[in-house]
């Protein structure tokens, strides 16, 4: 992994559990992140986003008063947010297939599961910096390209619209 100086970054952490908020803020400060704002709900997170510009959003999913899915969907729809393409990391302990799919389809960028480790969190931030994905807009989706795998040896039929 590459070491990055991140003192110019401004992050938003959306997490309803107070202890978890403290843990994340302390970890991000130790990484050298410039500033970290926090919100305890999706609704409060959107309020902050309406008035501030963030370089990265880290959000939980299960929250009262505005879930993480609500937040991600609103960001990607550009509702009162400065940048609908802002990278979004979901940090959730709920890793059921349904929840992961819902988060992905709402437009999540990265989904490392809780419990979080220093290496996993830094690794995902690094990946966002080093391998940005283009965004895809369709009738029912706007978010990072959900196709991660690039197989240069694939020899099967090509059915993607941009394969033409």
């Amino acid at each position, binding site marked *: 992994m590459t070491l*990055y100086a991140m003192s110019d970054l401004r992050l938003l952490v959306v997490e309803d559990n107070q202890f978890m908020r403290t843990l994340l803020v302390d970890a991000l400060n130790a990484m050298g992140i410039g500033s970290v704002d926090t919100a305890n709900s999706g609704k409060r997170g959107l309020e902050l986003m309406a008035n501030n510009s963030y370089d990265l959003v880290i959000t939980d999913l299960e929250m009262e008063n505005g879930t993480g899915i609500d937040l991600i969907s609103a960001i990607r729809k550009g509702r009162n947010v400065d940048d609908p393409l802002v990278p979004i990391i979901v940090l959730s302990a709920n890793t059921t297939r349904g929840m992961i799919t819902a988060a992905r389809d709402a437009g999540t960028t990265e989904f490392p599961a809780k419990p979080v480790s220093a290496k996993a969190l830094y690794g995902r931030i690094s990946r966002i910096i080093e391998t940005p994905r283009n965004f895809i807009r369709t009738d029912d989706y706007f978010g990072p390209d959900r196709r991660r795998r690039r197989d240069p040896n694939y020899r099967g039929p090509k059915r993607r619209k941009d394969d033409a």
Partner: protein
Amino acid sequence: MAKHGNLEVVENPNRIAQKVRAIPGGNVDALLQRVEKAMENLSDEFVSIYHEDVERIGARMSEALADPEEMDAAVSAIRVSLHDLRGQAGTFGYELVTRISDSACKFIDLSDRFGRVELMVLNMHVDALRAVKQQDVRGEGGPTGVELMNGLRAVVGRHGAGDLDEAKLEEITGSA
């Protein structure tokens, strides 16, 4: 931006990369150690929360077992505490606590119905948590942890037959 029928590709300007600076030869391990230390500083606080959560879960389970009218509210409250535990415990070296709590949460979430039998299965998870807390089991718990999770997996598997489909069962027990 490129359009392909009703699909549009929007180029990512990668603004975040423009605001960071790579440090050639920089020591990532040293950085990660600092971050881990910052997280470890919260260990004592986590242990207090963990103990309180297990007590609270135990108390609500007793309510649920004693009064069927209280079951739904009690199970909801139990799930909140279990969800917090599964998301935090592993960070502080209590991986077995995460696994038990995760199995319990998924069992609650993925069961099509939740009655007396399901409550018994949940109670076994709660008993496991109490035992792990009482013995201050760290990490995955070694052979005892393996035996415990195998036991919970067997209970979920036995109960799940006919009620939980194969995919859901695998999702719960795979985490166990």
